[in-house]
């Protein structure tokens, strides 16, 4: 198809879609409406299970199946990206020279920020049922934190402190822990992903039953998964080269 035909097809479709969207959207409930039936069910149930962060209650208790599959998508994508970015037969990994020099100040800043980021990440993970955040957000923060090493030191330091095999294992274990907790619910309480642990007192670290454990499992999986994922991209950009 020529570019011209492509544009005709697209603009016809876009015009139709636009007209329909406008006609439809004026029938939407107004922005800021007071009617939210699902919320009215979800909030009291979350409070009854000592989970002040209702979003976490939804993600890890009421609609935990969605989150399990979401984490599986992440797992699948990390494995998929690793498969797609594996060095092919004509390539090998080779780190030519250290890329430029990092300023001492940058280096210092990186080393200072690293422990802080790690602390913040862990905090966000374990308090997911109480405050905004949770396993996913904390996990990404942790993964990003590890990459401060790249900013601070060098790719070599990062490689040394980043035994990828272990992160792959941790990723599998985190994802597996989610499934196992779900299956324990089936065995103990008769339903897959049932929140079968005592709910405790609202506001405590160990409250809300399995929500806190699922958050930690997801935190481990996401942190190691994102590290592995970024490692593939870094390796492609920095070290994988074609053999000429």
């Amino acid at each position, binding site marked *: 198809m020529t570019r011209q035909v492509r544009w005709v097809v697209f603009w016809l479709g876009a015009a139709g879609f636009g007209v329909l969207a406008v006609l*439809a959207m004026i029938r939407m409930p107004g922005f800021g409406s007071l009617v939210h039936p699902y919320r009215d069910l979800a909030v009291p149930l979350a409070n009854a299970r000592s989970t002040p962060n209702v979003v976490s209650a939804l993600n890890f208790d009421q609609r935990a199946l969605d989150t399990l599959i979401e984490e*599986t998508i992440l797992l*699948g994508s990390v494995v998929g990206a*690793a*498969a797609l970015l*594996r060095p092919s037969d004509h390539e090998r990994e080779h780190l030519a020279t250290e890329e430029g020099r990092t300023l001492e100040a940058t280096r210092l800043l990186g080393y200072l920020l690293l422990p802080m980021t790690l602390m913040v990440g862990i905090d966000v993970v374990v308090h997911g049922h109480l405050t905004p955040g949770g396993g996913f957000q904390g996990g990404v923060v942790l993964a990003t934190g590890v990459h401060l090493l790249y900013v601070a030191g060098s790719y070599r330091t990062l490689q040394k402190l980043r035994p990828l*095999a272990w992160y792959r*294992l941790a990723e599998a274990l985190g994802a597996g822990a989610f499934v196992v907790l779900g299956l324990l619910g089936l065995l103990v309480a008769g339903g897959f992903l049932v929140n079968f642990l005592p709910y405790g007192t609202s506001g405590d670290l160990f409250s809300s039953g399995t929500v806190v454990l699922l958050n930690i499992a997801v935190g481990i999986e996401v942190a190691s998964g994102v590290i592995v994922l970024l490692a593939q991209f870094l390796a492609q950009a920095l070290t994988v080269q074609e053999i000429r």
Partner: protein
Amino acid sequence: MDPAWLPPLGIAVPLLGSCVLLAVARFAPRVVTDVIAIATALISTAAMAGLLVATTSNRVVTWAGGWTPTQNLTVGIVLQADQIGAGFALLACVLTVCALIYTWRYFEDAGAHVPVLILLFMAGMTGFSLTADLFNLFVFLELMGATAYALTGHKIEEPRSVQGGFTFGVVTSLGAYFMLAGIGILYARTGRLGMPQIGSALDGHGMDALVLLAMVLVLTGLLVKAAIVPFHFWLADAHAVAPTPVCVLFSGVMAPLGIYGTMRVTTTVFGGVLPPSTLHHTLVLLGVVTAVLGAVLSLIQRHLKRMLAYSTIAHLGLFLVGMATLTANGVAGSVVYVLGHAGVKGALFLLVGALLARKGNVDEISLYRQGTNDGLTRWLFPLAALALAGLPPFGTGLGKAISEEATGSPWLIGTFVLVSAATGGAVLRASLRIHFGLGPQPYEADRDTTSGDDEKPEGRFPHRTPATMLTAILVLLTGGLLVGVLPVISRIIGDGAQRFLDRQGFIEQTLYSYEPVRLAELSHVEWNWAAVLLGLLSVLLAVAIALIGVFRGVPQWLDKPLHVVHRLHSGHVGDYVAWLVLGIAALAALFSLS
């Protein structure tokens, strides 16, 4: 054991299996990972077979997280299995087992990437078949999608493979995002996410522009998966390049699941606001256009995997036409057709895979007379081609005949016969040239289409087809035969089709735990003389088409129109997305006009 345990197991077992695989892949030898993968798939198969048996007496309803509704209100996600849903889940598991057996020591793959991705893909398909929650459906759709892109592009050495994976990824992702937008709109209107809940909430409101937009958007995501025109472009590009065993899963169950999802959503969620005649006319039109276009494109391919892929598009169109009758017979016929097609088409893909493994080529013209010394596969190939056209007593023939009868229109019956004959004829033509050396040496005139010359062999088996490959081929072909021969299969599907269409019972049983009313009318899903004759007619036509193709070639006057059809399928991702947007507008127009 409570049958309500089985649906979650169908999802959890493959997830657990793939985590174990990932964890041990570093240390364990190759044999161990292969065994773990196949064992996981077998356990899931057993669970889904048990589920299918349980559904024959009643729907199996499971509330994930134990959130059973009180007075029809709940926050949880519901899984619902009837015979059709459980049947699709079982089909996904069985085909996965076949694919894994075929890949036995086939990929050079250190990290066990391929078996892990295949298992996750299987989990996505079983979950998609069993869930009755719209957002959950989207999540499973994305799981199927993400693993499928990665599997499609797995042969990174080949430029086509990564391009096909990319196009597939962009188009189906965009389709899924439109679907999510539709779900968001439905949530705004009803404040619910479960299919039965949204369905009963919509009943009070009736149809308006907002519900129409939501419906069109949700269907876009599903019809992209189902490769219905004009959302079909990605399928041939992806199927042609994916590793052969993965093609078996794509053609056999992933794309038909798009049809299944379309019907599940239109009947349950929109069944109360959408007049059945509107749905019927729209889907029949889409199905016929898809079937005819797929058949034409299949006939003019020389790349064998692309030929099979376009034949899948043609059959998807036929499945949709059968479903669109909205009668138990039509749905049952379509599902039998899907099962038979999965076996036959799967066998054909693996036969092409065996050719590729031995000759390193999948081009009909370059392989001319190259397969005359093949043993068993030389005879299986044309047999499968005839089965694809609807040879009795294969499941394809039975499903086709029941669907034809259900449509009750001579025009539609003619479409079924011609389309199935054309796809079977195309494959038979290739087989006659490759395995029997019939006809003159084909000439290289056509520059419009992709040739099959530059494919890399999968595995290295130059001398003979390995036993594992042959086993998988025979299992699939026998499966396709058994679907048509065993009356128990068609009886289960016949009962299931009635339950599938019983919207009231679906809502009452999931939300209110009412016991279902036993449905009186039984559908007739069995062979009769008309069915056999129509099947034989298709086969005769297929042979005629194949012989004309071998000895006469394409008539001159068709060159120009075919050139246009070729150019439309440009492999350009921008083109495909433009068509996607136009398709949304066209779908809305079709629904509001009819």
